[in-house]
């Protein structure tokens, strides 16, 4: 399992179901992390910086050889869309669970995937590939018309992406987009295209076997911040049967054109006129794949593994009900989405009908700045959208994570917001509105603080002349006093 955190844990779960032995890898920063313990064995592959560990092909292949691993699942991010890694695996005699290097090169690169989409008759947005200098960008943007969007040719996930409403904004955004693309993907080429607005992000899940492909419905992921998805759902609340069928047919045509084997997602922008435009293909498992799994009953990781082992393509499954996923991130949504670090002091995951949690952390684990801020995904399924929404709200309300600031309250705010409740979700919804966050601490939290900090040590045993005297809720320890006497140097854990 050439990845970390929640996706490594999730893949190991399927491997266990399939009675296949699993090997986790971890960087020195992830020693003792949740994913390291989820596998049958684990191997340290280097120092914390991704380039030295999770992006280190030689170390990963060496770990595969040392443990006798026959196949490598790349997860998402890191090397999951690296054709060079797929090739290196093949040369090393290890099966790469994913498409061939050739399919990946064709579809993973935005420029060539656009040409492949054109050949397959998939509608595309006007734009140009490989803008190298700011002057080229300005000239091309002048031809296409503003607003325009800059994207990294080398990969997805929103890194290296900038929108520009006019020439001045484009001039300002170009360098930072180029640098971010270089940092994230080692490839500073940028792609410039017309911005469709207001747009919904709708993507089709596909599975291919190298010859044929099936589509497994759509996911709408319009709610994004800085081009990172926050809430994802299926079905898209406004998609007509006709448009869905057309999108699925386009995705399948593209998969066949690329002789695609494995799981992929074909992303589209759905415009205000109902027209849809090809965005890109993610030649890997998607973060939000559980949304499709909840509706189809299909285990997409199992399907990936079976296809990689030469097995047949599963039959196109029927889709049931509605599913919504929320991404729990270590970030402060009310202060510029600043990444947050800390130690996980306490964790309580939700349970309940139709609720699934894909977690990548455990209690006591440090959250550091080396990696992505995704901590866990909470997914709820219901007979309809409203039931799924209510279940997800209930699940997030019963989730407790202390020690690291997360976007949990923001997820709840979004799920309860009128725009989401009515399905009025667009790619600009999050960033076009102010989300000031709570203005003060509610009474119950203040009361809890009072009890935690100042309550007399034996309060619950004293003066309660009723059944509470025998209640299991007996106060343990001298917590309040420990806090006030615990004045270590600022910033140091005590």
């Amino acid at each position, binding site marked *: 399992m050439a990845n970390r955190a929640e996706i490594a844990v999730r893949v190991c779960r399927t491997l266990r179901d399939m009675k296949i032995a699993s090997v986790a890898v971890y960087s020195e920063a992830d020693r003792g992390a949740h994913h390291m313990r989820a596998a049958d064995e684990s191997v340290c592959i280097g120092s914390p910086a991704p380039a030295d560990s999770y992006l280190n092909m030689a170390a990963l292949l060496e770990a595969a050889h040392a443990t006798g691993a026959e196949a490598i699942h790349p997860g998402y991010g890191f090397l999951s869309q690296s054709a060079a890694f797929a090739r290196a695996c093949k040369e090393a005699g290890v099966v790469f669970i994913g498409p061939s290097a050739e399919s990946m090169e064709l579809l993973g690169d935005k420029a060539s995937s656009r040409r492949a989409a054109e050949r397959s008759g998939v509608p595309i947005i006007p734009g140009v590939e490989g803008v190298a200098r700011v002057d080229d960008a300005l000239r091309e943007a002048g031809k296409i018309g503003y607003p325009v969007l800059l994207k990294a040719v080398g990969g997805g996930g929103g890194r290296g992406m900038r929108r520009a409403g006019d020439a001045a904004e484009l001039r300002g955004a170009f360098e930072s987009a180029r640098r971010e693309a270089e940092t994230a993907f080692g490839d500073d080429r940028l792609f410039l295209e017309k911005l469709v607005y207001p747009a919904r992000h709708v993507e089709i899940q596909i599975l291919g076997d190298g010859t044929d492909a099936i589509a497994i419905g759509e996911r709408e992921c319009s709610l994004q911040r800085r081009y990172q998805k926050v809430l994802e759902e299926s079905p898209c609340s406004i998609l007509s049967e006709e448009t869905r069928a057309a999108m699925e047919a386009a995705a399948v045509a593209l998969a066949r054109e690329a002789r695609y084997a494995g799981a992929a997602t074909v992303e589209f922008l759905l415009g205000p006129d109902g027209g849809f435009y090809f965005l890109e293909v993610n030649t890997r498992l998607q973060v939000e794949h559980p949304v499709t799994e909840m509706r189809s009953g299909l285990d997409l990781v199992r399907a990936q593994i079976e296809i990689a082992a030469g097995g047949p393509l599963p039959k196109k499954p029927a889709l049931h009900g509605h599913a919504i996923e929320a991404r729990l991130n270590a970030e402060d949504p009310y*202060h510029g989405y600043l990444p947050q670090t800390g130690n996980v002091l306490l964790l309580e995951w939700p349970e309940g009908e139709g609720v699934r949690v894909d977690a990548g952390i455990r209690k006591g684990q440090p959250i550091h700045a080396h990696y992505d801020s995704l901590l866990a995904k909470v997914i709820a399924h219901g007979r309809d959208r409203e039931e799924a929404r209510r279940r997800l709200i209930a699940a997030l309300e019963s989730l407790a*994570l*202390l020690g690291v600031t997360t976007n949990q309250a923001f997820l709840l705010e979004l799920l309860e917001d009128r725009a989401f409740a009515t399905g009025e979700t667009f790619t600009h919804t999050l960033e076009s509105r102010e989300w000031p966050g709570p203005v003060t601490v509610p009474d119950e*939290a203040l009361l809890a603080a009072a009890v935690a900090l100042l309550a007399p040590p034996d309060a619950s045993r004293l003066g309660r002349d009723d059944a509470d005297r025998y209640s299991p809720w007996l106060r343990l320890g001298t917590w309040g006093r420990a*806090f006030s006497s615990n004045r270590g140097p600022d910033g140091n854990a005590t």
Partner: protein
Amino acid sequence: MSRQLVIRWSGKAIEASLSFRGGGVRLKRDAVTIEADYQRNGAVIMLTTGGAAHRAVVAKDARGLWISCRGRTWLLVPEGREGAARGAADAPDEIRAPMTGRVVSVVAGVGMEAKEGDLLLTIEAMKMEFRLIAPEDGTVLEVIGAEGDRVELGQLLVRMKPAAAAGGKS
């Protein structure tokens, strides 16, 4: 016996007076009094107030007291403890790292006359870039971070003398 509770949340001070009796607590805040029964078991605090039951979980670290109740989490800092939780860039002339990460570019140099909003330096963490800008017009006195440096949350990066302090802000 009444006790004073002063805590900071998100930079704001919240004051309340408290009295405990048996398994009950009375809290007075902004002239409003709330009474609650409580039970505590380790990290779990059960509160009953006005017929409504609340379940909260609490934990502490060097940054303060963490409380989660109904899916909302609060980091409360008892007054007198000004830890890293207070965050950064409070003083107008000290630009501090808003998170732990790595400096990817430094624009500011000593003596640079920066206008409000000018880019000073860029930090990267969790694969995202953050631009630190001048909070107001002023002169750069000191630049502590260099490209490639690892920086900790709250670490001082740039010191600036505000133009107003230099004399005659119109």
